């Protein structure tokens, strides 16, 4: 995973709540067996409307998505995170994320930032009025900065440490091999098995 320390970029204000992962990347894109090449599927249905905010020329190259509450609900498809990253997004801001989407994003280095809806509203107003306005997401300081906006955000220390250092979860877990082996040795015999090991 790529490390994330701080990022500054222009924003896309997305005034929609309950943006489910079927909207972020429709199911027919999920037939691909790679982690890349999903950028054209991002918000595919909405992008058919030329006035959709992502299609506006002034949003080209924007890297911070500012969305309504309950972003990433529904399907567990990690393809939603890959699609956002493939398109160029580095961070998503919302007042509430679905749990699985949030977990997936942090495992891929896409920073999902939870801010109060009141702050999201201010970011929407700012970036709608001025598409060139930049938003900084600083993971070291746990702070979002924009013209007239300074907002602290929470992220648990462990997740932050892994993101700042771009650490691979599996390698970290395998450092606990002795604990895993001890647990396995003590499992009761009535637990189900798919095949005879």
């Amino acid at each position, binding site marked *: 995973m790529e490390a994330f320390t701080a990022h500054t970029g222009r924003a896309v204000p997305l005034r929609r709540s309950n943006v489910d992962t079927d909207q972020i990347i429709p*199911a027919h894109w999920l*037939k691909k067996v790679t982690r890349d090449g999903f950028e054209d599927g991002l918000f595919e249905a909405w992008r058919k409307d030329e006035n959709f905010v992502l299609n506006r020329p002034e949003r080209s190259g924007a890297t911070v998505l500012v969305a309504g509450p309950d972003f990433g609900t529904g399907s567990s498809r990690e393809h939603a995170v890959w699609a956002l990253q493939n398109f160029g997004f580095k961070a998503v801001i919302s007042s509430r994320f679905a749990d*699985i989407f949030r977990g997936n994003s942090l495992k891929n280095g896409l920073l999902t930032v939870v801010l109060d809806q009141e702050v999201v509203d201010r970011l929407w107003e700012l970036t709608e009025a001025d598409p060139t306005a930049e938003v900084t997401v600083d993971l070291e300081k746990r702070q979002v900065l924009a013209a007239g906006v300074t907002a602290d955000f929470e992220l648990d220390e462990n997740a932050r440490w892994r993101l700042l250092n771009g650490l691979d979860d599996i390698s970290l877990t395998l450092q606990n091999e002795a604990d895993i082996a001890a647990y396995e040795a003590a499992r009761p015999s009535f637990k189900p098995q798919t095949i005879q090991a």
Partner: protein
Amino acid sequence: MGRTLAEKVWDDHVVRRAEGEPDLLFIDLHLLHEVTSPQAFDGLRQAGRPVRRLDLTIATEDHNTPTLDIDKPIADPVSRAQLETLRKNCADFGVRLHPLGDVEQGVVHVVGPQLGLTQPGTTVVCGDSHTSTHGAFGALAFGIGTSQVEHVLATQTLPMARPRTMAITVEGELPDSVTAKDLILAIIARIGTGGGQGYILEYRGSAIEKLSMEARMTICNMSIEAGARAGMIAPDRTTFDYLRGRDHAPQGEDWDAAVAYWETLRTDDDAVFDAEVLIDAAELAPFVTWGTNPGQGAPLSASVPDPASYEDASERFAAEKALEYMGLTAGQPLREIGVDTVFVGSCTNGRIEDLRNAASVLEGRKVADGVRMLVVPGSVRVALQAVEEGLDKVFTAAGAEWRHAGCSMCLGMNPDQLAPGERSASTSNRNFEGRQGKGGRTHLVSPQVAAATAVLGHLASPADLSDTRTPAGVR
């Protein structure tokens, strides 16, 4: 202080607990399917890692599989390639696979329970959000992303922050016309699509205790639609009776030891939930969705709500957008909404009881002219059982299409899709924009409402059907 069911199962799976770190949880059962696993297997290959516990891993094919002509090569080359990738990955790594054509193939969340692999007090994961289904057995079961699929394949564990717990207590008697699907749709409408966020839900109370295992699976299945990490129901005699004798259920002394353990998996009387919701079963009625998220639902007797009636600006805007997408107007009675398609199936409502419930409404009746009805069993085993009971004949005699097992029109990754503008009554779990096909419009319903809707051509419950059954002897 006592512990909740979720806390007991969680504590029994902690491999490692350290200050400032998420708990490392052991995973008892890992279910795989073709859509969310290819990139995970690639990751293992790149790192030169094996699958740690092949004996706790099982795969099937469901999302892409066709429900017609399953003996022929799959027409869509991309779908075919994805299924072939799963077959190669399972062969290369040694994972047990039930492919299309196998008697144990089916929707992954139907297959696990029917094999007896889903057991009380286990941790179950799958790269699919509806893994919450397995919580009906008192398992801690949750959907994971592909990075976590790779993590479990490599380590049989997951680092997880401990969620909070929420009790959803349903007391009283459900009216005869009200099913588990109506109940869960009503719960989601009440707490909202984000209401369960950060929580493990425990469904409890006298109305839940009376439900069959299949009905409990319908409830737990849609926990994710309320935003919850998982949903659970304490195991009891109903659970044990369902499991006894299944292929992978414990045998002999193991059975006795297992039951002794399972009986401890109840929330202690002095345990405290972080949140509680109380529902009066007697007040419920058949429930359908009108919008584009599963929380936008109402009793069938109601009308399409007026967006202006929402105080919250974001909810108001969402309702406006939903009505626009769904082609509905505020104040329109829900019963007057006509449909083109009826879909019975999915991990929510594709089990044998669901098919029996739909068939009992359809028997002696006809699907309305101009309505297409698809019945897709959740697994090959469910299909075989339905055929043994003659349910397939009931469906085809009524004019419905009897298909092969799979996820099918729930998400339209195979050819079973809505055309733009088409409207369905669907027993599946998501009414998102385009979920069942680009531009398709979905109303989530129970199997009984689906069948009644098929007969009348508009959203309806069996109670609306009093005189549509062909009298015995008349053809």
